[in-house]
């Protein structure tokens, strides 16, 4: 077992060089561009790009070293005169669509992008069919209740605390 004393001092001994030399931090002041328009574009682009070694974080959010390198690269490309799309293409050419937090529209992602709309339409159809069927079975107001049902209804209306119309 390591004693507390040894542990802490061991840690301090290791810590000093690690912190002195570890440059990783999300958007350091020394990375930032002096041109505020370009810097704003750089932040915009960085938010769209995934930090490869993290879970769904953008390189703008990440402390990882690679994310920092990519941020610097994005800024270099902007300074070199690339527009936003060219910068993103530059990164995608090296790392693939995997780096795009917003999955691009292509045959492989048609199902993904279509799914919300398809689900909404299916749900609308189902809900519509549900109400149609209920209506065909008789509207709730006119349906004659069985004795048991009437009892239950009375019980509900009597005990429930809201002011339902009876």
């Amino acid at each position, binding site marked *: 077992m390591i004693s507390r004393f040894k542990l802490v001092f061991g840690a301090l001994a290791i810590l000093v060089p690690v912190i002195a*030399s570890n440059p990783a931090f999300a958007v350091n002041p020394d990375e930032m561009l002096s041109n505020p328009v370009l810097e704003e574009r750089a932040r915009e682009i960085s938010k769209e790009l995934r930090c490869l070694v993290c879970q769904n974080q953008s390189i703008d959010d990440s402390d990882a070293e690679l994310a920092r390198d990519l941020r610097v690269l994005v800024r270099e490309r902007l300074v070199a005169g690339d527009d936003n799309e060219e910068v993103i293409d530059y990164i*995608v050419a090296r*790392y*693939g669509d995997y780096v795009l937090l917003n999955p691009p529209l292509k045959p492989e992602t048609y199902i993904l992008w279509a799914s919300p709309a398809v689900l909404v339409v299916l749900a609308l159809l189902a809900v519509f069919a549900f109400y149609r069927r209920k209506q065909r079975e008789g509207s709730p107001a006119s349906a004659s209740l069985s004795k048991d049902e009437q009892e239950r209804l009375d019980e509900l209306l009597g005990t429930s605390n809201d002011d339902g119309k009876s």
Partner: protein
Amino acid sequence: MRFSIAVIPLVLFAALAGVFLLNIDKDASVVPSVLIDKPAPEFSLPPLPGRDKGLSRADLTKGEVSVLNVFASWCVPCRAEHPLIKRLSREADVPVYGLNYKEKDPEDGVKWLAELGDPYAAVGMDLSGRTGIDFGVYGVPETFIIDGTGQIRYKHVGPVTVEVLEKVLLPKIAELKG
């Protein structure tokens, strides 16, 4: 009609379960490279301190199959795979090049190789990590197999293990060579 609606969950569930059960042993944590079957990027890296030969794209297009191994002295798994890289360079009979990735101190790579042995035909020093990015490196160690025309044909992410070496890398190299 109710029958058909009630069967939907069963079908969807079966489909999903099927996909997951069929792929249970596939490793999805490795991101396949987009650079496979594409020419290796243009680069020219300086040598390690005290050496005179660096590494550039010209080395990879000499007409023979080659291996490019990305390593760093600060990377723990690199240390673990190093003996296997040595074995690879002995057994595969192809040049194994080293890309020394993002050392904090240029001397670190030299010391590391002096301590563990140097299996590399040539080593380029990528202090900025920019060549690494051009190669799509995201986790060191990574190992590329490049054919004689300079096309990247295979990439392994993570430490090379005995199994990877014997079942994947060596057969792949043999296939490309012959």
